[in-house]
């Protein structure tokens, strides 16, 4: 391969964006763009959209493996199915499911059969599990502390019927599983969020620290507090000490909140798998339905993440779902139910047996201790 001339490469700074709708939208959708007037659900996986022109399109929603991973082989098979039964296109949902597009219910059913035959379930609309979003974690990520794709697989195996609708839920359920506090699976604004944790303050590997610091000469000219790594820590847990010629980065464990910002910016931060676990949060949502958008709250600040079964995690998630199924009103998302019955009652129903939990500080690094200020009501038995 001979390298093209340089100016041509510089052209790479002018990005090629695939934004020409005309090129990517199937004809059927182009004709009815913005003209959809009604939709009908056929089971839990197929939606029929009706246009004011009278035309219809059927979408078939299919779950993918964790982290929306697809081999080129499978992609080609999907393309083939879409060509044979569909309208020559698929779409990827923003949450990593696939939608096949068809122009009749029969065609949609055929698609369903074929993908189910390949081992991919159809479902995920209405009062079901819409899917589990997983970040990439051990598949490609350097900062991961737990492996979200395999946790997702463990959860998916257990919650399968909730996706297909064989068993239904009070309302939509989505789960985000992130391998570390960066929360790439989408943060905490969702029904159930699972977030990997170090569990203990990081360890600093002195040997490679210099890679994350400015070159010695430049460093000598920067005030300690202005050094990037020091600035990155939100709580002041990291300070730089110059000892003669040497530089030491000190970590005050009492100040550390385990946010992982240091590690995100420097590979010298390490941890011990011994302490690693996940936090489980509940009751978030982005949608404005019911009580409106909200961040989830920490129900369980830590449980271990033990592959391959991840029993500790799946047990708690199942429990949360059971409590929700038992106590929710029809159509009530987890966030709305918790809001109605109260956090204390919810925690109680789940059976979290702790004598002390966090105090809501909203943002890390404020003056008050991040700890429990007990209320009488919550103490009552």
């Amino acid at each position: 391969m001979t390298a093209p001339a340089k100016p041509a490469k510089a052209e790479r700074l002018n990005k090629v964006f695939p934004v020409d709708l005309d090129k990517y939208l199937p004809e059927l959708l182009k004709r009815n763009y913005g003209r959809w007037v009604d939709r009908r659900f056929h089971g839990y996986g197929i939606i029929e959209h009706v246009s004011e022109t009278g035309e219809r399109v059927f979408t078939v929603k299919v779950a993918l493996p964790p982290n929306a991973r697809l081999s080129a082989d499978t992609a080609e098979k999907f393309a083939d199915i879409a060509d044979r039964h569909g309208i020559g296109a698929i779409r990827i949902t923003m949450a990593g499911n696939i939608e096949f597009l068809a122009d009749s219910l029969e065609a949609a059913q055929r698609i369903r059969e074929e993908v189910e035959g390949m081992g991919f379930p159809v479902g995920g609309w209405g009062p079901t599990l819409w899917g589990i979003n997983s970040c990439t974690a051990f598949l490609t990520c350097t900062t991961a502390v737990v492996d979200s794709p395999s946790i997702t697989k463990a959860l998916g195996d257990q919650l399968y019927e909730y996706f297909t609708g064989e068993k239904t839920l009070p309302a939509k359920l989505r789960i985000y599983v992130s391998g570390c506090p960066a929360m790439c699976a989408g943060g905490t604004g969702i029904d159930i969020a699972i977030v990997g944790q170090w569990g203990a303050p990081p360890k600093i590997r002195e040997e490679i620290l210099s890679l994350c610091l400015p070159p010695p000469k430049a460093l000598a000219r920067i005030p300690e507090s202005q050094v990037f790594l020091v600035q990155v820590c939100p709580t002041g847990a990291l300070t730089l000490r110059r000892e003669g010629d040497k530089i030491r980065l000190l970590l005050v464990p009492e100040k550390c909140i385990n946010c992982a910002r240091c590690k995100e910016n420097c590979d010298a931060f390490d941890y011990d798998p011994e302490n690693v676990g996940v936090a489980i949060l509940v009751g978030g949502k982005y949608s404005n339905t019911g009580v409106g958008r909200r961040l989830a709250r920490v129900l369980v600040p830590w449980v271990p993440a033990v592959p391959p079964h991840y029993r500790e995690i799946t047990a708690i998630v199942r429990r949360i779902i059971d409590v929700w199924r038992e106590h929710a009103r029809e159509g009530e998302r987890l966030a709305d139910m918790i809001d109605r019955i109260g956090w204390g009652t919810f925690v109680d129903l789940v059976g979290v047996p702790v004598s002390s939990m966090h105090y809501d500080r909203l943002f890390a690094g404020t003056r008050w201790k991040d700890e429990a200020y007990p209320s009488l009501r919550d103490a009552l038995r």
Partner: protein
Amino acid sequence: MAAPPDLPPPEELLRRADEMLKHFEGGRWPSHVSELRRTGYPLHVYGVGLVARKSPWGPSTAPVQFVNTGVLARVAREWVPGRGEEVHFRVFHTPGKFLPTSFLKKLAELSKKLGVGLLEVVGQTGALVINLRKEHAEQLVDELRAIGTDVGGSGDAIRALNACVGPALCEFALFDTLAWYAEFHRDKRVNDAIATPGFPYKFKIKLSGCPMDCARANRADFGLIGIWEGAPEVDQEALRRKVEAGEVDPRRLEERCPSRAITWDEKSGTLIINGERCRKSMNCIRSAFPAIRPGRKKKVAVLVGGGVKGRFGPKLGWFLTMLDPDKPRDAVGLAFKVIEPWDREGVPKDRLGDYILKVGFTEFLRRLGMEASGRHVANPTYIPYKVLQKEERDKFLKLSEELGR
């Protein structure tokens, strides 16, 4: 406080003050002005304040021998025509604030003889306030002591205690608020901390017989609230009668229970209450009393750190522990145990609650040598990362293991 701008000349000021006062003698609600007219209180001062839209009173002193708390003295500001002065005592109320007519008459008499014939029958903390004449202060102390009460409770001291009427008149009382109230007063340390200020700031003790908290123990530095463990007690037979009579709708009991602890079994006509879940809202009880009444396993809950402001603003007390309803002396001991670290380390004008916020609740417990009790989940965090100690983590590990079985 300086004279407000644009104050009219004295005569005009007094005229307007009078007009203002008259206004408040109209209307249907009982009038404080009409009531004050029946007394020797210098009403013109108050009227001038209303016109000026500034308090007409400045600080003054009225030293009374060996009385270090409970005496408040004011002098009218220099811009109040005719000036005037005002002194009042905070006097200890009777238990349950019962006033036999003989005692009430004595108070009225004293108030006329040595004061201006005016009382505040209860201060918002709980004291009885007598407005007196400065020159009779010494005598009033002696006469009050003679009829069985006394002056005290202001400044950085223990303030007038307050207990709800409890067993004297209320069906719901879960402990003997009035006996406990007496017990506190019998303790020498309480006496001394009422008599002489010495804490970083004031310290208030309030006692409520049940979770309805009529004595507002939730806003006390040290609050005591009667509670029970488990489910309310249900007399199923009596309840069925109430249901049949249409007095009680069991579905509504179910629905209105804020902790969803209630199930009404239609078939057997039985109300089942899950005691583990019941949060003692009293809702079922007050709706179906006496067929439903508080449970028998009685406790007294202790709340610490409440207050309306202090350094860090409004706070409701935090739950500390449970006491035995038959052991009021434990409560007295605990109060002083709680006072100790605050008294030693607290910055002046930090209430107990401010102190606790500064050191953190966990550290506060450590200083008391106490264990956390109860579930502390009122304010869950939104932040999914945190350094947790191993013991803490182990609790959750246990939970997941139990659920996984």
